[in-house]
C-alpha cells in the first residue's frame, strides 16, 4: 500500500531552511530520509519552498481569483510530502511519528487513492 505523509511545519522549522544545514532539525531530516530509503519504504517526496512563495488560484463564476500566499491561513503550513510503500497504516503511523516535523509541527498520513487513480489514469 502507498501512503502520503503530508508534512506541516512550524514557522521555526521553515526558518531552519536558511541555515547552512548543520542545525539539528536539518540533521534529523537527513537521517530520517536515509532511514526511509534504506528500509525500502521511500517511493518519492520533496520539500516545498516556504508558504509565502505560494500562489493560490480559484475560478469562480468564470472569474479568476488569484491569492498571494498559501491556500490555508494556519500557523503550521504544508512544507513537504513523502510517498511511502508500506504493508499497513500502522507502519505508516510509525514512520510519521519518527518524522522530525512530528515533534514541532504535524504529519498527516493519507492513503493513496488507488481506485480513484485507476479511474482517472485508465
Amino acid at each position, binding site marked *: 500500500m502507498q501512503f502520503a505523509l503530508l508534512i506541516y511545519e512550524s514557522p521555526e522549522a521553515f526558518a531552519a531552511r536558511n541555515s547552512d544545514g548543520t542545525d*539539528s532539525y536539518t*540533521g*534529523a531530516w*537527513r*537521517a*530520517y*530520509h*536515509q*532511514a*526511509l530509503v*534504506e*528500509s*525500502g519504504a521511500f517511493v518519492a517526496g520533496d520539500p516545498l519552498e516556504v508558504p509565502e512563495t505560494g500562489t493560490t488560484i480559484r475560478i469562480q463564476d468564470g472569474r479568476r481569483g488569484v491569492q498571494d500566499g498559501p491556500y490555508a491561513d494556519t500557523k503550521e503550513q504544508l512544507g513537504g510530502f513523502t510517498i511511502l510503500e508500506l504493508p499497513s*497504516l*500502522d507502519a505508516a*503511523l*510509525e514512520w510519521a*511519528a*519518527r518524522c*522530525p516535523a*512530528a*515533534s*514541532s509541527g504535524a504529519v498527516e498520513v493519507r492513503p493513496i487513492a488507488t481506485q480513484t487513480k485507476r479511474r482517472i489514469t485508465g
Partner: protein
Amino acid sequence: MSGSDEEKVHRTIERVARESYGRLVAYLSVNTHDLAAAEDALSEALLKSLTAWPRDGVPQNPEAWLLTTARHAVVDAVRHQRVVSANEPTLQLLQENTMASNFSTEFPDERLKLLFVCAHPAIDPAMHTPLMLQTVLGLDAVRIAGVFLISPKTMGQRLVRAKTKIRDGGIQFQIPEPRDLPQRLDAVLDAIYAAFGIGWDDLVGVDGRSRELAEEAIWLARVLLQLMPNEAEVSGLLALMLHCEARRDARRGRDGRYIPLSEQDPRLWSLPLIEDAERHLADASKFGRPGRFQLEAAIQSVHAERGRSGQIEWAAIVGFYEQLNRVSPTLGRRTGYAAALAEASRAEQGLAVLDAIDTDAVSAYQPYWAVRAHLLHRLGKGPEARHAYDRAIGLAQDPAVKEFLIQKRG
C-alpha cells in the same frame, strides 16, 4: 453543600472509580461475558453518583452502591433488548445477583479471570493490552490510541470487535487449567509489560514506546501479584518495571536533554522504588524458577547496584543476557547482549554479535542502529559509525533521543 464539600465528593468518586473499576467490570461481566454492557452500566452508575452523592452524601459502601446501581442498569438494558435476544437466563441471573447484593457488600474479585480473558489466545495479541487498559483500569479509547499510535476511531472499532468476540466467541471467564497456565500467564505478563512501554534502558541512546502508562502497568502487575502470589515471573515483571521506573527523574537533564543509563546520576534514582524492586526480585528467586522477566529484572538490578558501588558489573549482565537468549531470544535481547559484551570485553565482539543478526530484521529497529553506531565509533570506524548514527537518528521518535544521537554523531 459548599463548593469544597462538593469537590471532596467528586474526588471520592474519582478514587472509587479508579480503585473499583476493574473489580466491578469483572464482576458484572463474569457471567454475561458482555464487557461492553458491563462498562456501559458502570458508566451510568458513575454518572448517577455525580448527582446522588453530593445530594445525599457519599454512601457507607460506595463500591456496593455502584455495583447495585450498575446491576439495575444491566437489567434495564437486557429488558430493553429482550425482544431481540430473549436473554432469559442472563436476566434471571442478574436479578438473583441484585437481590443478593442487598444483603451483602462483599463480592468476589474476578479481575484475574478478566485479565486472562483480555489476553486470550483467540484475541488478536495487539489488542491484549488495550483491552486490559480499558476494562481493568477504565482508560478511554482516545488515550489508549495515542500511546499505541493508532487513530482513536480505529482503536475504538478494534476494542468493540474484540469485546464482541469475547461475548459471542465462547471465551470462558475462568482461570486456565494448570497445563495451559504457563503459556496463558505469559500472554498476560506480555500485555502488562507492553503497557509499560518497552524501553531498552541499558542501551545507548535508544528510545521505546512512550512511558505514559508506566504507573498503570505497575498497578496492573501489583493487582496480578495480589491474585497470583506464587508465580515467580509476576514478581519478576514487577521488579523489572519498578527498577526502570525508579530512574524516571534521572533520564532527562534539567534542559530536557536525554541521559543514557550509564551516565545517569544515581542520586536521582528513587531508592524506595529500587528497594521495592529488590524485594520482589528476592521473593521471585525463592521459587527457584528463573524466567525472562526475572532475568531482565536481574540485569536492571546490576545497573542499580552502581548507585552503591560506583561501577557496572558488565560480566554479570553478559551472563544474564546469555541465559535470556537461551530462554527466548528477541531482537532487543540480542542487541542488549551485544552492547553488554562490548563493555565487558572488546567492542569487536559486540559488533560480531550484531553482524550475525539478519539485516532485513533490523531495517526499522532503532536500538540496533544506536548500538552499532556506538560500537563502530569506539572502534574508530568514522564513516561507518556516521552512517549507523544516521539510521538510528532517522528511526528515533523521541526528539531528545534524536538530539542526543546527533551530538554523538558529531
